Every structure is written in C-alpha cells, then in structure tokens.
C-alpha cells in the first residue's frame, strides 16, 4: 500500500512541537535484539530515528487502535504496543528507567486521534453548556431549534466511530480557524444566528459565504492556520448588560425573560453578530 512517506516524514521533523521525545529500546522484527533508537511522538504518529541527530526517520508506528501495556520481558522497564487486528505485530519497547517507562506508556496510550477527538468534544459540549447557561432562557429556544437542525445540508456524522459531529453542532460557532467552509450562512438561518450569539463567528474573511466560495482557489490550510498568517481568534463580545441596546419597552431586552418573541431576539442577535463580524474583518 502506498503512503505519502516523504510528507509523513516531514511531519516528524517540521516545526510543530512534538508531544514527546526520548530514547527507547525497540525490539527488532527479524533481528530480535533491542536497538536503541530516538523516538519522536507527534499526534498519533510515533517516529523512530537511528540517532537523535538523524534527519530522516527509519520508521513510523501509526498509533490508532492500539493498546499500550506493560509486558513480561527479560528486559527491564519493558512495555508493548499492541494492535487489535489479524496477525498484528506487537512492538516491544523498553525504557531506560521506571520513570521513563511510565511516562511513555501514559503518553502513547493517549496519543490516538480518537482520544483527542473525545476530549475536544467533551470541552466543546462544556463550552456550549456554559454559553447556554449564560444566555438563560434563550437556551431553551436554542435547544429546540437544534432538533430542527437535522435538515442542515451538511450532516457531519456518517458511519463513524461515535458520530463525528452531531448535526446540531455542525455550525460550530466556536470552532476556530478555517472551518466555516461549510457552516451555514449566518444570514440564511435564524438558528445559526442564535448559535453564534457570542459573536464568535469564525468565518474567514474571504471565505465561503452562503456555502459557496467567492472565488475559486480559496486556500485552506489543514493545520488550521489561514493563508500562512497566524490566526488569532476574534475577541468575545462583552457580556450583555440588561437594557443595553434595547429600544423597546423596559422589560424587553436580549436577556430579559420577557423577550418571548423569537423573531425579535433573532433580529437583535443578528445585528450584533453582523457588527462583530464587520469589526473583526476590519481588524484582520
């Protein structure tokens, strides 16, 4: 099977900081002696080099679907990376110390993409809950809208492990850089306007509006940076104070429980989002 090996190797040594580095002994495949190698863990990829100064890795172990266990071995401080597929290889490794072994086992067992995704989702949900809480009654309106959101043209969860992104969060208001290629156009759907109520509308300036690019050849960096510029998230708007911007009666305001008229709320939020967006675009 082919692999974009050169680029994979480049990932190992490019400037993004590794998650862990160090010497480990690795048991050879054919030659069953343990060889001391320099290891670099980045994301879900464990690279190994002949020596610390080597420019190119000898090899890489993709750490998806594996378990890391301590193992019985004549070798001290030994552990193993095991995969759950037919005739899978067991990578036997050994550290130079107890501390080293424990540290590597911990780091490797949390290195998978799936694990990272889990943690991200957890935090994403926490943040959403926090923001719903902050907006009080609007939370209810928002969650009922979420159910109606199933019709969104870009369902994110397909046949995947755990369903990647639930449909309701596909507009991803808080997701930073370069992600709004498919987020629903803010103007077209009220729910989206409400979901972005914190003004964290991360659309890229030249980006897709109404789901279509303004020009072909819009460049998206998959590492999350935009066009090579370092991306800074826009400032989150200040918390609303009661009565701010409400021209209507004293009891009605964006956060007042009296504001039961959804279309009014929507207008308020829509304006605020639009203003913030302009402000942010101009600041770029």
């Amino acid at each position: 099977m082919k692999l974009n090996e050169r680029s994979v190797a480049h990932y190992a040594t490019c400037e993004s900081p590794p998650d862990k580095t160090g010497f480990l002994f690795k048991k050879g495949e054919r030659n069953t002696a343990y060889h001391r190698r320099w290891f670099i863990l980045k994301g879900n990829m464990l690279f190994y080099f002949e020596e610390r100064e080597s420019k190119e890795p000898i090899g890489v172990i993709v750490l998806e679907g594996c378990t890391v266990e301590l193992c019985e071995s004549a070798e001290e401080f030994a552990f193993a990376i095991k995969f759950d597929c037919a005739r899978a290889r067991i990578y036997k490794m050994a550290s130079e110390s107890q501390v080293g072994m424990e540290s590597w086992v911990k780091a490797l067992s949390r290195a998978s993409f799936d694990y990272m995704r889990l943690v991200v989702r957890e935090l994403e949900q926490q943040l959403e809950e926090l923001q719903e809480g902050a907006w009080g009654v609007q939370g209810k309106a928002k969650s009922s809208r979420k159910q109606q959101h199933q019709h969104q043209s870009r369902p994110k969860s397909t046949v995947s492990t755990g369903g990647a992104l639930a449909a309701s969060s596909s507009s991803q208001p808080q997701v930073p850089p370069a992600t709004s290629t498919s987020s629903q156009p803010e103007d077209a759907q009220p729910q989206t306007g409400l979901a972005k109520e914190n003004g964290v509308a991360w659309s890229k300036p030249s980006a897709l509006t109404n789901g279509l690019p303004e020009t072909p050849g819009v460049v998206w960096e998959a590492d999350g940076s935009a066009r090579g510029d370092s991306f800074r998230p826009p400032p989150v708007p200040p918390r609303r104070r009661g009565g701010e911007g409400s021209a209507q009666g004293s009891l009605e305001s964006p956060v007042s429980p009296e504001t039961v008229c959804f279309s009014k709320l929507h207008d308020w939020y829509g304006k605020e989002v639009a203003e913030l967006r302009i402000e942010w675009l101009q600041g770029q």
Partner: protein
Amino acid sequence: MRFNEKELVSLSRQPSERAAELGMRGPKKGDVVKKRLVKLIVNFLFYFRTDEEEPVGALLLEQCRVEREDDLAFSIAFLDEAERKYLFECDTQEQCLDWIDSIIKASYEFMRKNLIFYRTEIHRLTGKDPLEQYGISDETRFQVNTGLPPLPAPPT
C-alpha cells in the same frame, strides 16, 4: 521509511467519517484521473480501486493544504512539496465543499488547536481549567503553545 502497513490496512476498514467514489489524479506529471473509492478515517485519506479490499494507498492529512480547484474539484498538497497536488473530482458542488470541510477538520493538529481554544475559553469563563478534572492538564499535547498567553496556574 518503514510503517505498520498491516495495521494501517486494518484501519482503512474501520467506519469512515466520509466515503465516496471520486475521480482522483496523482501529483505526478502524466497521472490521469481514475475512479477511486475514497475514505476519510481519522487523519488518513485512503483510496481504493472500487470493490477491492485493500487500499491502493493512504495519505496522512497533516501539514497539508486543501484548495478548491473549480466547481467540482479540490486538491490536496503537502507543505513540503507544495506544487505536487492530488486532485479530486466530485459529482456536485456540495459534495466538493463537504469534502474540503471534512479534510480540513481531519488533522490532529487542527483538533489540537480546537482543544486549546476551548480550554482557554472555558478557563476564561469559569476560572477553572477544564482538563483538571480528568487529570490531564499537564499533558504536553494539550498545552497552549500557539502564541496565546498561557493559562495562569490553577488556584490552590
């Protein structure tokens, strides 16, 4: 460079984030468009000849750039060889956009940035580091290193 091919092939059989038959053209001069079953799983893009069990190949989607090429096509290029592009042809504009979006979100590094953002934001809103309760706040991979100010030390 050696890699654990068996395990990667096994990964290619897992449920995918997105899968479709697309036209695919390699980056070399003279490469032509071929029909391939393309599957996005974690941060890999696998491509198969239709009805074959084992993928023809895999692309690790880190340090890459995804670009819209025209109405129905997008390309993937890797930052170390930016002129070499893999081209993908879709059936509809929407499909094309969906793929671009999914691929951008498929990198580990992208997720890491999200995580750091959420962590910082939650900390800002609550004064608490959300990773503490899981006992993973010291993990290197979750550290803020994007130029944003580091999180203050947790209150004692």
